[in-house]
C-alpha cells in the first residue's frame, strides 16, 4: 500500500450535458521519500489534480486514499498533508512566525512546541530571516521558502506544491529544487507541478498531464516504461 493512491479519478466541470473533463481516469501512487513532478500546460488539469490529492476538491468518480484512509475532498486540507499553492496571503498583515504559531495553537499544539516547530521549519527551508517579516513583503525565493515552512510546520507526510518555482529568480530556483529533493530524501513524499522543464529536475518520477489525462507513468507494476531517476553511479 502506498502513502497516496489515486484510482481512476475523474472530475468534470460545467453544466450537465456540457461537461468538460478536468481529470480523466487518473491513477497515481506516491510513496514516502519520493519526489514526483507533474508537468502540464495551463488548463492541463495540474492544479486540479493537486487540489484533489490534497483532499481540497472531491472527484466525481474514483478514489483518493491517503495513509490508508479515503480522503473526503471536503474542501479542507487532509490531515498529514501540507499544501503550497496560490502564493502567500498578500492582504495578511501578520508576521510570518506569529501566523505560524497561531495556526499550530488552533490545532491544539501547546505554545512552546508551536513556536519551536515554526522556527525549525523556517530554518529548515532557509527562511529563518523571514520570521519577523509580514507575508505581503515577501517575494520570489523568500516567499516560496516561507510557504514551504508554513506547510512543514504542520509536520506533514505528504507535501503538495503547485508551481513552486514560478516567479523565483533563475539562480535561486535550483536551490529551491534542491531543497525539495532533500526533503524527499529525508522521507517526505513530495508532489509538485510545473509547466517548465526545469521544474522536473531531481524528481524520482516525472509525469505529463494533458487534457486531464496523465501520461508518462503511474507505478512500475502498472506501466512497463517508467521514467525513474537512475541510481547514482548507475
Amino acid at each position, binding site marked *: 500500500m502506498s502513502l497516496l493512491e489515486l484510482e481512476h479519478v475523474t472530475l468534470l466541470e460545467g453544466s450537465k450535458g456540457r461537461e468538460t473533463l478536468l481529470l480523466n481516469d487518473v491513477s497515481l501512487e506516491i510513496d514516502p521519500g519520493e519526489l514526483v*513532478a507533474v*508537468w502540464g*500546460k495551463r488548463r*492541463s488539469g495540474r492544479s486540479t489534480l493537486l487540489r484533489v490529492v490534497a483532499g481540497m476538491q472531491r472527484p466525481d468518480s474514483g478514489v483518493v486514499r491517503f495513509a490508508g484512509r479515503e480522503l473526503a475532498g471536503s474542501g479542507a486540507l487532509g490531515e498529514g498533508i501540507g499544501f503550497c499553492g496560490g502564493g502567500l496571503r498578500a492582504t495578511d498583515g501578520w508576521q510570518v512566525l506569529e501566523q505560524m504559531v497561531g495556526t499550530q495553537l488552533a490545532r491544539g499544539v501547546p505554545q512552546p512546541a508551536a513556536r519551536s516547530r515554526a522556527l525549525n521549519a523556517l530554518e529548515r527551508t532557509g527562511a529563518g530571516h523571514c520570521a519577523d517579516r509580514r507575508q505581503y513583503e515577501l517575494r520570489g525565493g523568500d516567499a516560496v521558502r516561507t510557504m514551504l515552512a508554513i506547510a512543514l510546520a504542520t509536520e506533514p507526510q505528504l507535501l503538495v506544491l503547485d508551481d513552486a518555482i514560478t516567479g523565483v529568480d533563475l*539562480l*535561486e*530556483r*535550483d*536551490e529551491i*529544487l*534542491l531543497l525539495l*529533493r532533500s526533503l524527499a530524501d529525508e522521507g517526505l513524499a513530495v508532489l509538485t507541478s510545473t*509547466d*517548465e*522543464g*526545469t521544474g*522536473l*529536475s*531531481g*524528481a*524520482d*518520477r*516525472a*509525469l*505529463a498531464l*494533458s*487534457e486531464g489525462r496523465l*501520461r*508518462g*507513468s503511474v507505478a512500475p507494476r502498472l506501466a512497463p*516504461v517508467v*521514467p*525513474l*531517476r*537512475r541510481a547514482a553511479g548507475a
Partner: protein
Amino acid sequence: MRSPVSWALLGLVIQRPSYGYELVQRFERTYGDSLELSSPSQIYVSLDALKRRGMIEEIPAEEAEPGVVRQPKPHYKVTEMGVSAYRKWLISLAKEQRRKARLFARQVSVLGAEDALTVLEHCELAYLDEACEAPAKPSKGLLDHVEGLAQRLQWEEDRLAVGAMLSWIDYARRELQQLVAAHRSKR
C-alpha cells in the same frame, strides 16, 4: 573543418594551452558522455589539422631538467584566427540544431497520425526521464560558480530544451488526435 572532435579540441585549447596527452585526458573528462573518441590518436590527428589551418600554434616546450633525457612535449595555444573560427562555428552549430529540430517535426508528420502519436508518446517518456536526470546544483561562492559553469550551462540547456519539446509534443498530440477523430468519423 567538419570533424566535431577537432572543434571540441579547439575549444579545450582556447580554455587553456595544453599538450597532446593532457588534451586526451581533458577531452574525455569534458566531452566523455557526448562525444566519443575512436582512439586517443584522433586527438593528435586533430591537433595536426588545427595547426595546418593556423588555428593553433606550438609554444616552446619547457626546458627538461638537466640530466633528464625526455622527449619535449609540444604545447599548443590558440591563435586569433582559431578563436574567431570557433565563435563562428558555435553560431552555425546553433542554426544546425534548429534545422535538425525542424527536420524531426517534419519527419514525424509524414507518419500516419496513429503511428506519429505512438512515436510522440515514446519521445515524451524519454524527455520526462531526461528532465528528472538534470540535477539541480546551485552554485556556492564565486570559485565554485566558475568551475561548475560548463556543467550548469549544459544542465540548463537540457532542462529548457526538454520543456520546449514537452510543450511541442502536447501541441502535436492534439493536432494528431483531431486528425484521427476526423478520419474515424469519415469511415
